[in-house]
């Protein structure tokens, strides 16, 4: 139980570090002087000390929505697969619920974008609605396929099952599912081929546009939510698609897990450096690829495993 609580707290604490690490890696690769990997914490503390400016045009939604964006993600943190063998984990929540909770967070984020009556907020919400509508089917199909291989739909139980017995005979479907899930990781977190988190140019932005009117503590909450979302997806990827290293003693297992998260972050950074942002109307092609891989994964599972 203690390991469980500690690992959740550590994951929350590490989340800004991961995003700053991606940024720093990208800057190194582009021959720039990198930012400190602790920049995320600095931004957070700076924002926490600022006063909150609320737009006059907004309503009660802006007052409550930032908390409602963060709360489901924090709840999801409690349902992640265990990082260490024998650690407590919540076995009564399945992958659908996690998808649903992430959608709940996005739902309030989109309302927040529409509430400030600025054209940018509406644009961001509209684009986010478009992207997340296409993410949903790929997500559900990938979950379905992974749950078949892991023998359980509950993510906690699935993580444990995969770590204990890896289904080598289903390697092909496993790989397809992994590709599909990685595309989803990029799309849901607004990384480069889908959205550029670093610019405020109107043409490129999705996530940033929705929160253009937020400042101070509210902005800090939303930024935390974004980084926690990345950690959720990265650790789901790490537990479900790289299920090894759980059997070591707690500190080592934990370090291995962190290393896996950094590995994923590095891959994301490399991808961001090497690709350009897609046009909005090309994004369905990428997500369609993800859907196709999810279908392929299921079909290979059924055909080979029947």
């Amino acid at each position, binding site marked *: 139980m203690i390991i469980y609580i500690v690992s959740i707290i550590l994951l929350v604490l590490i989340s800004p570090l991961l995003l700053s690490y991606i940024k720093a890696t990208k800057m190194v690769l582009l021959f720039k002087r990198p930012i400190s990997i602790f920049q995320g914490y600095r931004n957070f503390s700076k924002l926490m000390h600022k006063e909150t400016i609320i737009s006059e045009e907004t309503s009660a939604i802006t007052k409550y929505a930032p908390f409602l964006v963060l709360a489901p993600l924090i709840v999801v943190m409690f349902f992640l697969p265990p990082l260490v063998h024998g650690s407590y984990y919540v076995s009564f929540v399945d992958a659908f619920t996690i998808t649903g909770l992430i959608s709940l967070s996005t739902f309030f984020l989109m309302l927040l974008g529409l509430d400030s009556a600025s054209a940018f907020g509406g644009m961001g919400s509209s684009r986010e609605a478009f992207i997340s*509508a296409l993410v*949903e089917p790929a997500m559900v199909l990938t979950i379905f396929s992974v749950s078949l291989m892991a023998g359980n739909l509950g993510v906690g139980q699935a993580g444990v099952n995969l770590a204990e017995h890896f289904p080598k005979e289903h390697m092909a479907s496993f790989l397809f599912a992994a590709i599909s899930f990685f595309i989803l990781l990029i799309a849901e977190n607004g990384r480069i081929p889908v959205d550029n988190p670093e610019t405020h140019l109107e043409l490129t932005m999705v996530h940033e546009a929705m929160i253009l009117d937020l400042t101070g503590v509210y902005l800090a909450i939303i930024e935390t939510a974004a980084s926690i979302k990345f950690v959720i997806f990265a650790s789901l990827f790490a537990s479900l698609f790289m299920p090894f290293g759980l059997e070591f003693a707690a500190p080592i297992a934990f370090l291995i897990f962190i290393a896996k998260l950094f590995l994923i972050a590095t891959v994301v950074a490399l991808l961001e450096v090497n690709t350009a942002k897609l046009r909005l109307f090309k994004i369905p092609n990428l997500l369609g690829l993800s859907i196709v891989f999810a279908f392929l994964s299921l079909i290979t599972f059924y055909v080979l495993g029947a």
Partner: protein
Amino acid sequence: MFVFDTLSLVFVALILLGAVPNIFYSSGYLPHIERKAHYQLHYFAFIISMLGVVVSANALVFLFFWELMSLTSWQLILTETKEKATIKAARFYFIMTHFGFLFLLLFFLIVTDGDLEMSFASMKLIASHFAYPTLLFFFLVLGFLSKAGAVPLHVWLPYAHPQAPSPVSALMSGVMLKVAIYGMFRFLFDVLYPWPLEWGIVILTIGALSSLVGVLYALSEHDIKALLANHSIENIGIILIGFGMGMIFDTLGLHTLSTFAFIAALFHTFNHMSFKSLLFMGAGSVLHQTHTKNMEKYGGLIKTMPITALTFLIAAVSISALPPSNGFLSEWMIFQSMLSSSHIDNISLKLAIPFAIFALAMTGGLAIACFVKAYGITFLGLHRSTNAKHAHEVNFLMKSGMILMTFVVLSLMLFTPYYMEYFDKVFVGLGRASIYADIFPEGIWHMHSVGMNGGIVSPLILLFSLVGVTAFMMFAYKVFGVKTRLHNSWACGYKTSQKTQYSATGFAGPIRRFFTWLYKPDEHFEKQTIAGHETKFDASHYEVHVKPLFEKIFYINVAKAVNYISYWVYRLSHFEQTRYAAMIFNIMLVVLFSYRIFSHEFSWATFVLEFFVMMISVKILIIGDKK
């Protein structure tokens, strides 16, 4: 004459849950209706007729109440006949509902052998001896699903529901469609029981198509009530997906899974009743205050109509299937039953079901987009018109109707296990084993799937943890005493006004563009240029309308074909008399030729030869020269 088994009683409960808050709302709405007596009479007759349908025990009573339900709802659409569109919609509804009635009548005439007072149990005997059971099944599908609004018989919904007064739309969409679902349950179980596999697949396909088509057309809609009507098509589709999975599992002998899927469908029926009624009431309040159904004219209503906005938000979260709402729970159950398709041995069926999963998941994603649009454009931002500016909260009775309905929505979420117990009893009554203990093996906190590697969900724990975390953060925010300041929206330094906000059309823009092949939008774009400069303009106007594809294919084209044929029949009946002799000659020729083809031998050469002989004689003798 009447039957009160668990299935009937559960549907009586559904109708009462839908109707009682509606009566409050309706009495608050009454002062704005001109023909009060007409409205009241048909309103209560409508509710009673729905109750009559679900408790009737023989075909005669059933058909009587069914027809009464259709006629009263038709009259209710006609309450306010000032607009031409209302009369048109009512006529369309009248035709569609009697189209369905015709097939129900045919069904009953066959299965009762003409004795309409026969009980449902004895109909089963006759139906089992009937040579073409699939014909009976299609009669049922056409009869009930045209009322429920499944693709491709859904076309009347987006016309009829917006034109009715709002309490009636809430009743029609929330409750009346469910009466059709009752009919499916009752007659498929009681009369046509052992189903072939194909029937389940037909229902599943109709469901998957309806859900996608409904949500896609809902997204492109600016009329708030038409949007909600399209969402009814979607939700009926979701119910039918559950229903179809239940039928498929049943024919494959997976009885526990089958009951689970049927319970999911029944639960979604209840959920849809609750949130759709609430949404229609909310839309009705907004409409009542702003006097327009066009969403582009709303905006910022949350500030002046907080109760409506809050109840609408709860219903929107629920219909978007976001946890921990009741909508999520039923959709979760339907997903679980579809994921249990890995138990199926038939490999092609196994590979086909993921496509239905895909349709349902896509529907979920699009529904979220649609309700962000509906809620965001209606209630958030700045007022988009003067009407919206002068809107204020509705009267007490209407508010209490909405609040009561919110309690129904919340009760379905909080007391899921208790509802589930009754749903389970329905299927015990229909001759299934009880699976309540399989869904809730460890008490009421965790809901289990009955599939092999199925999931678990704990709605209450989720709800409490979400509320707890949010409350904790808000408490911390209060305790730290963060300074807040009010200022205008930044919007990159430009001034925000009602015209710079995103519109409903703009919000659905990306999705509309992605699905252009389906929507085939009709765009109007006008720009007044200044002195011929393309880049300078002082006024511009952009409008886009989406023409429903199914309506075009199945209705308008059929109407065109009938017109065309009737033109030729008209021509024929105005020939001079000599040509009638020629027609008789030609008909005899056809009969003789076809007799030879069918009863003797068939060869392509003679067939082609005879065809040309026919054509030439028709051309010369009947049609003659063109004038």
